[in-house]
């Protein structure tokens, strides 16, 4: 037991203080943003689908810290967390959820579709699994342009069952594309557990048929995610081709706001909540004296303020002009739309 604790401690001091505080702030921002978004949904300020990431925050935090700014990233519709981690502002994201013209995509994307060219964020895709080949295509372009950037291509356990995954794994390995595939296995695709859709419930094994280096990762710990990502990115960056990480995580809430998540037990949920990544990191930071209680509460306060401000910003922002319906359909000027 003592030796084990020592080991953990050794790992912890591997990173500078700011890294721990960055992970903490990142995860807390995502958590607080989404808790507030749920509240705003119940007030009907936000409509449509709202899939929250609560419980999975260690994944976006660990990926963000391991990647280079230039590494492109694409994921599915459960994407507020990753966009915020990459640097999208709470203001722009909240305004997008509110459907305001100041949103990250001028209110055109909504909860499932944040994009940012500046952040090299290729967005949230609403078609399950569709982003898997697209992510490989993003990698192909990097290889083609002879950069050493790596495409980070994220998808859920449900998406892992799409045929496109196999087509893509095959081509990505054949062509040694610089891509890290990240399967966020949160145990469920809507109401269907991983075990119910396949006899292969350890999803990292899906890489084996293609001889893709593949491994499972503890997704409730940002340090574990960071380390696995760091290794996988280095592999892909060195020209050795794709890497698959199955990041085992859990969503505390239902699939979307309309899902009461009756298909799983309270016990299962509580077991995951007991290893909550934010609490875990906070206790490590305090125990190991990486930062003081005061520093932690300063971060908490500033994030609460940031989210309050984001809601105020979203509230105060104007709705998009209905004429915008006809913009961003074509790059061509004066495209002749059929209007009557």
């Amino acid at each position, binding site marked *: 037991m003592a030796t084990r604790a020592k080991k953990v401690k050794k790992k912890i001091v591997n990173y500078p203080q700011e890294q721990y505080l960055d992970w903490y702030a990142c995860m807390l921002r995502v958590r607080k943003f989404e808790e507030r978004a749920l509240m705003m949904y119940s007030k009907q300020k936000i409509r449509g689908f709202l899939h929250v990431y609560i419980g999975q925050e260690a994944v976006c935090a660990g990926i963000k810290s391991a990647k280079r700014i230039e590494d492109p990233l694409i994921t599915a519709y459960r994407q507020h967390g990753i966009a915020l981690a990459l640097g999208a502002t709470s203001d722009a994201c909240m305004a997008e959820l509110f459907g305001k013209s100041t949103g990250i995509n001028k209110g055109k994307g909504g909860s499932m579709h944040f994009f940012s060219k500046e952040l090299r964020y290729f967005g949230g895709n*609403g*078609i399950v699994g569709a982003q898997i080949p697209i992510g490989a295509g993003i990698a192909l372009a990097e290889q*083609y342009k002879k950069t050493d950037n790596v495409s980070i291509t994220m998808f859920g356990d449900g998406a892992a069952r799409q045929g496109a995954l196999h087509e893509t794994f*095959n081509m990505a390995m054949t062509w040694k594309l610089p891509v890290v595939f990240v399967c966020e296995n949160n145990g469920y695709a809507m109401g269907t557990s991983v075990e119910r859709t396949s006899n292969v419930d350890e999803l990292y094994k899906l890489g084996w048929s293609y001889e893709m280096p593949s491994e499972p990762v503890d997704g409730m710990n940002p340090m574990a995610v960071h380390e696995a990502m760091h290794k996988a990115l280095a592999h892909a960056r060195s020209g050795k081709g794709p890497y698959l990480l199955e990041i085992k995580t859990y969503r505390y809430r239902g699939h979307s706001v309309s899902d009461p998540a009756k298909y799983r037990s309270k016990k299962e949920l509580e077991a995951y909540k007991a290893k909550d990544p934010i609490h875990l990191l906070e206790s490590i930071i305090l125990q190991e004296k990486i930062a003081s209680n005061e520093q932690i509460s300063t971060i908490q306060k500033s994030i609460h303020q940031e989210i309050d401000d984001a809601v105020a910003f979203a509230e105060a922002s104007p709705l998009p002009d209905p004429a915008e319906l006809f913009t961003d*359909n074509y790059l*061509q000027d004066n495209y002749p739309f059929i209007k009557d």
Partner: protein
Amino acid sequence: MITLREAIGEAMTEEMRRDERVFLMGEEVAEYNGAYKVSRGMLEEFGPRRVIDTPIAELGFAGIGVGAAMNGLRPIVEFMTWNFAVLAFDQIVNNAAKTLSQSAGDYSCPIVFRGPSGAAGQLAQQHSQTFESWMANVPGLKVISCIDPYDTKGLMKSAIRDDDPICFMESEMMYGYKGDVPEEEYTVPIGKAAVRQSGSDVTIVSYNKMMIVAQKAVEDLEKQGISAELIDLRTIRPLDHETIVTSVKKTNRLVVVDESWPFAGVSAEIAYEIQKYAFDYLDAPVTRVNAQDTSLPYAAPFVDAYLPTPEKVIKAVKEVMYR
């Protein structure tokens, strides 16, 4: 004189020489020189980095094309035929067409999806479909469909240079069709129809290989003293509304010859446009000659019964002329 297949091959080759970002991918495009030999010699010239053989995985490679296009390249994705592109509709419809809107202008998708559309003999139900109407229904896409080698080469070059996603419909049966193509560089604008023959009694609008059917009908009609104006749409979306309306205002009669199914198809769209913008000029209801509203079975008699023919076109013209 060069063939349609050579015209497409030349267009792709010239654009790949001109722009390093352009590349070709698809089943059999490289080593095999293309299932219909459209990409003959391209692997030799550009190597496997830019002429890429894919597995039989339409959804996967279409998606890879979309991702590459979003990230600064200009892919040409060949489908062996559009029938197989159905597997990739998710990527074409849900991604290529929507990326610009979803990202509010951050990401465009300059890609050309190309391959033959339409029936090609007795290939039976699954290999005989026409997809112009399907794709033209989707905002965000542009749809080109033509067989004239001059037009096709010029339009293919425009398509590759265009910043929006394009579905380019060719014709399996017409790859050997010949036409004059000049040595020098030229392009043909997207969104412009061509008046192939001017006439005064009736307007016939068509596109792709149905132009051959319509042309034959026009010749026969001429012998019978009927002067038809023949328009080749070339681009389906955006539709060149003006050329059609101007012609109908002159001839007062319209027959649309369209290989796609009638329901909510290209012909339906044109009929709508005409009743809306040339209603007072019409001397007869707009008439159309489509493929039958059925699947196309294998046996020979079905093919003639199914497709538009010169005889059916002549009959339709006589109908609108009350002859």
